[in-house]
């Protein structure tokens, strides 16, 4: 058991990776079992992630070095350099890992009933597992080049999944093309920035780089390259053009996982500005850039969402808008990073709000996309003008939708309220105007979801939807689990903030915690 636990950082990735390549073989024998098999593998991965989370929170950051006991290599001259490839899982990494594990497991369960066409079904699950591997890798790795590789794994898998229905329809292929170009360009820019850092310091390990980084002209260029492309991958305005297309055209469970994949890019952004550069860089300027990205995303996202008629496109614009809250919260924390008084007064709270919102958003936006998928599954349309009166025949879906909509609008007692309140009260102390914008956006969000609720669920029963019934059990199960998580987080936010979010924030803020675990052991 302890061997399994010690190797859990790699097992979390290795199991889905192995299963992804086993699935085509299993699909040859029996097409029906591939879904159950991948859900099982992701369940094991989830269990390992929870065990690892307990260990990281109680014991401290975990390092897994590939092919060696220690991360360093002592040269004959006595020089000790961290050259090995390693996974470095700290509280922030495992926080994101928990989101990834939950979301991908529930996505696989939901797909059991949602993906009806057996042709190409094994490819679907293979790609789903590969996408999960890519996301886990981005979150756990302690090495910049590895990060690039996992980023590419995740984007290639997600493009193939977005274009999954492209065999039959044109639009998914179009969305897939857009996303592919965006993500390959951003990955290449990331690689270029890695090249600059490597050329300057001869290091790829994030912790070792953070230790020697000087914020020279070249480092500024690298930061200026990394910041916008990672914001683009996470779907922030003004680089959000791929988000509505990709989110609306992907199958619903994949959209839920894609939200988590964009958040993995967001995590990488935070890791770079906090763990790699930290106070060496001009945190006020970097913080304000992130805040401006955030405010633009919040406002433009929600105003674009209000006019949409396609339910998933509307939710996708809301995803852009909610990403703005995370950027705002974390941006404020970054802006006051070099000011200990302000950091203690409201910076930490604002960071907690931003980071907590990542998890909350993954849960409620996942739930909303799943309900949209359920509506599409039964009615065959995503157009809100063609829907109506579905509350009569889809009672569970209606309840789940209400929970998700209340959470995204920030109504108590759901989880969106908890993180938004943290953001409002801390950002108000930094700059009242930003806080007011955030509140207005929240009201607009509520308005837009009232519209969706009204046009999809309320009203008399429409004759063309007479034979519509509730969705199959596996879809209800995954939506129910997400709803329970949302309500639990909403009722006991203190518990989550104290045990999961606060350690994650401290892991970001205190750079020594990240670098020390690698360099201290040498």
């Amino acid at each position, binding site marked *: 058991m302890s061997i399994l636990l010690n190797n859990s950082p790699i097992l979390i990735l290795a199991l889905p990776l192995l299963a992804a390549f086993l699935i085509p073989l299993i699909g040859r024998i029996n097409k029906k079992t591939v879904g159950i098999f991948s859900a099982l593998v992701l369940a094991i991965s989830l269990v390992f992630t929870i065990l690892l989370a307990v260990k990281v929170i109680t014991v401290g950051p975990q390092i897994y070095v590939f092919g060696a006991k220690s991360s360093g290599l002592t040269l004959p001259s006595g020089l000790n350099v961290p050259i090995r490839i390693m996974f470095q899982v700290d509280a922030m990494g495992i926080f994101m890992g928990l989101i990834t594990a939950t979301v991908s497991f529930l996505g696989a369960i939901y797909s059991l009933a949602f993906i009806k066409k057996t042709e190409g079904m094994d490819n679907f699950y293979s790609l789903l597992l590969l996408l999960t591997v890519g996301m886990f890798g981005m979150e756990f790795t302690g090495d910049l080049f590895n990060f690039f590789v996992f980023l590419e794994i995740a984007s290639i898998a997600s493009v193939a999944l977005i274009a999954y229905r492209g065999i039959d329809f044109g639009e998914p292929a*179009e969305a897939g093309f857009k996303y*592919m170009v965006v993500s390959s360009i951003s990955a290449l820019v990331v690689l270029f920035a890695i090249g600059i850092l490597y050329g300057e310091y001869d290091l790829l390990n994030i912790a070792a780089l953070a230790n020697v980084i000087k914020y020279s002209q070249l480092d500024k260029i690298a930061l200026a390259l990394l910041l916008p492309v990672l914001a683009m991958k996470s779907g922030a305005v003004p680089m959000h053009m791929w988000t509505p297309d990709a989110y609306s055209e992907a199958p619903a469970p994949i959209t839920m996982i894609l939200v988590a994949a964009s958040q993995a890019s967001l995590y990488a952004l935070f890791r770079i500005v906090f763990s790699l550069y930290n106070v060496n860089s001009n945190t006020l300027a970097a913080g304000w850039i992130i805040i401006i990205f955030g405010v633009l995303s919040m406002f433009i996202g929600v105003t674009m969402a209000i006019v949409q008629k396609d339910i998933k496109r509307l939710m996708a614009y809301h995803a852009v808008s909610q990403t703005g809250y995370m950027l705002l919260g974390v941006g404020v924390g970054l802006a006051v990073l070099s000011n200990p008084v302000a950091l203690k007064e409201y910076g930490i709270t604002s960071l907690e709000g931003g980071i907590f919102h990542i998890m909350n958003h993954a849960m409620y936006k996942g739930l909303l996309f799943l309900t949209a998928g359920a509506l599409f599954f039964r009615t065959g349309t995503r157009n809100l003008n063609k829907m109506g009166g579905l509350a009569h025949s889809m009672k569970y879906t209606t309840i789940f939708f209400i929970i998700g909509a209340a959470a995204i609008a920030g109504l108590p007692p759901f989880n969106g309220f908890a993180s938004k309140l943290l953001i409002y009260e801390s950002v108000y102390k930094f700059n009242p105007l930003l806080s007011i914008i955030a509140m207005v956006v929240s009201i607009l969000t509520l308005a837009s979801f009232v519209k969706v609720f009204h046009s999809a669920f309320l009203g008399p029963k429409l004759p063309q939807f007479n034979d519509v019934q509730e969705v199959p059990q596996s879809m209800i199960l995954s939506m129910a689990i997400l709803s329970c998580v949302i309500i639990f987080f909403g009722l006991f936010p203190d518990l989550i903030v104290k045990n999961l979010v606060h350690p994650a924030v401290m892991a970001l803020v205190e750079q020594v915690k990240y670098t020390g675990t690698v360099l201290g052991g040498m």
Partner: protein
Amino acid sequence: MIDNLPYIAVAFFVAFGIYTLMFKKNLIKIAIGVCLIENGVNLFLITLGYRKGAVAPIYTMAPSGQNMVLPTPQALTLTSIVIGIATTALILSVAMMIYKHYGTLDTDEVRRLRG
């Protein structure tokens, strides 16, 4: 000056790639633009590891006392090339799917998703 030639080539590759992405309307040409940027970045990585007059980083039969080029950027470039093949293949296959449904590769006409 002559030592900086590879970096100038990198700049040209990336600039041409960005030009192609921004001003060309054919999906295949966009794929070519992505490839150009990728080649530029690969050339940048490999140039970083280059040392003048050095030998390949293989210890067996290496002449003693001579500098070796850095092996890490070469490993990185190899990985990046392999990833690049997958990316290009995927872009082209998606472009093929688009052609099947829209009957054109012109970006002005492949515009059903808007708003």
